[in-house]
């Protein structure tokens, strides 16, 4: 970190003998000097300070709030006693409680979309050395997504003349409903889970797979060749990448001995030698390979770059949502980001120990804060990939899946078995 400030260099024009003109020797637009040591810029230091302050502030708030999950049971029993004293049947109390929890699960994809779209636009902008949304909302375009949502809500809803009207109307619903339902067995923290079911992993992959139907319906019913191509590509891609994605989780399930996602996350608590957390990502070879396969397959499952051939803008206009306007398009967008959140939550639970702290002395932060930060870091990877890798060609995409990812994930299952045999 150097302390000197960059002095603007005053450049003398020089005579260019080639064309007989006075020219500035350096006519670059970009101040590349300041990029050599960005820490010497006061704005850079201020930005870093703001970022550090934000992280520390959020950590402080999280520490202040503490664990939420374990407090819910006493609240429920209090409310139950209160309601029972007024003669409300116990069945209805349970129904209302389930409904309240359901509203929170419903809020997860909605709030996630509000945040993640803004975050994606900011990160894509900064990767391209732009600023991203700045003027909407009170801070750095924070309300950009809200404005987009209200505007899309008020736009005209066009159903094309040649569209299959019923299927066209139904497709966003079929995409969105599994995207919300799939959050039921996914933990957001210790005891913060809607339905703590024992087949959680199977449920997530099964329900998440239903969304493909909606995308094919959207492509088929629009009556547009681009939509149809997008829908078919999406179907081929999602069905193919479902396999390595599921197989990548198998070693984790074998090691943990359960399909319950919360129990898999809980299995990874504790530290080897008091330092290295017992996360699955740190199991030699098997954990890393499983994670990488799962990450790649998850990016493909969520139709994101470099696997975004279903909505490739340069080939198909906007893929399966070419003919969707207004709120229906927003629903597609919402479900896409819901699946990104789901993939990140699953990766955090399966490979990064869920709510466990990375180091023993960081235990004072609640589990939901760790869950959230791991999810956000993984989500950043998704956005980072988007601006790093070029798009796959369709046949290469399939080759990569069937000839590389699938064999690797199958071998990894065998390696997981050997690892269990070695550990026992």
């Amino acid at each position, binding site marked *: 970190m150097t302390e000197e400030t960059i002095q603007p260099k005053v450049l003398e024009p020089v005579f260019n003998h080639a064309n007989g003109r006075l020219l500035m020797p350096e006519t670059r*637009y970009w101040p590349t000097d300041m990029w050599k040591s960005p820490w010497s810029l006061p704005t850079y230091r201020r930005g870093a300070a703001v970022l550090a302050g934000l992280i520390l502030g959020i950590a402080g708030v999280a520490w202040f709030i503490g664990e939420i999950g374990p407090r819910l049971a006493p609240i429920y029993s209090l409310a139950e006693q209160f309601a029972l004293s007024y003669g409300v049947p116990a069945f209805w109390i349970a129904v209302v409680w389930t409904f309240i929890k359901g509203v929170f699960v419903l809020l997860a994809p909605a709030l996630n979309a509000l945040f993640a779209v803004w975050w994606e*636009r900011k990160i894509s*902008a900064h990767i*391209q*050395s*732009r*600023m*991203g*949304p*700045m*003027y*909407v909302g009170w801070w750095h*375009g924070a*309300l*950009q997504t*809200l*404005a*987009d*949502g*209200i*505007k899309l*809500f*008020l*736009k*005209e*809803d*066009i159903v094309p003349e040649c569209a299959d009207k019923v299927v066209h109307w139904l497709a966003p619903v079929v995409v969105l409903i599994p995207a919300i339902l799939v959050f039921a067995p996914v933990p957001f923290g210790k005891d913060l889970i809607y339905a703590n079911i024992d087949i959680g992993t199977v449920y997530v992959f099964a329900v998440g797979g239903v969304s493909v139907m909606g995308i094919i319906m959207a492509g088929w019913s629009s009556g547009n060749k681009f939509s149809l191509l997008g829908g078919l590509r999406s179907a081929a891609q999602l069905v193919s990448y479902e396999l390595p994605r599921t197989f990548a989780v198998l070693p984790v399930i074998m090691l943990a001995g359960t399909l319950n996602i919360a129990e898999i996350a809980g299995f990874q608590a504790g530290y080897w030698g008091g330092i290295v957390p017992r996360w699955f990502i740190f199991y030699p070879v098997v954990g890393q390979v499983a994670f990488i396969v799962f990450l790649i397959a998850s990016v493909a499952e969520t139709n994101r770059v470099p696997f975004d051939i279903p909505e490739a*803008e340069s080939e198909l*206009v*906007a893929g399966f*949502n*070419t*003919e*969707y*306007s*207004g*709120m229906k*398009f927003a629903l597609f967008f919402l479900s896409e980001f819901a699946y990104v959140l789901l993939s990140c939550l699953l990766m955090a639970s399966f490979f990064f120990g869920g709510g466990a702290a990375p180091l023993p002395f960081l235990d004072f932060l609640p589990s939901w804060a760790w869950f959230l930060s791991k999810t956000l870091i993984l989500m950043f990877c998704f956005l980072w990939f988007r601006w790093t890798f070029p798009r796959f060609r369709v046949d290469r995409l399939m080759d990569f899946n069937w000839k590389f990812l699938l064999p690797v994930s199958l071998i990894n299952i065998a390696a997981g078995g050997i690892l269990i045999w070695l550990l026992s």
Partner: protein
Amino acid sequence: MGIVLDNLSKIEALPGGGIALATSDELINWARTSSVWPLTFGLACCAIEMMAAYASRFDFERMGVFPRPTPRQADVMFVAGTVAKKMADPIIRIYKQMPEPKFVIAMGGCANCGGPFYDSYAVVKGVDKIIPVDVYLPGCPPRPEALMYAVIKLQEKMRKMTVKGGHGATPLQGTGSRKLT
């Protein structure tokens, strides 16, 4: 028009509906002005300046301008360049495919009046002969700052819109711009 905007003007008949409409105008116009999504669509050299406006030196996205590839999700069409007569039919078609409320910015001399091709056998003398234009932006080609100024002018126009009496959309709401030939 969308279901919401079609029925929103009926609130006016209710007690206190006028105030509610005025408040919702504020919100709706804020949302519209903050997220102007143009169509990824260029015709000639003006399109290069339009691309420069999206890129890092000017960064249109600061204002919430985010290009969409399909007309179904776009609010505004930058007619960036010379409108050849052969291209006129596709432009009308794309314009019809955009959902209400929709806007058009005629960018550059060619789109305004034919520009240097005023005397040509193959060029439409101004895109306003085929579709309604909201903002005319002179220049050959206009610089990206000028395009940003045009968008700011368009936002000023959007702020004057009101849902009262069903006039929530473009000024052509009464005649129906979709019925254009």
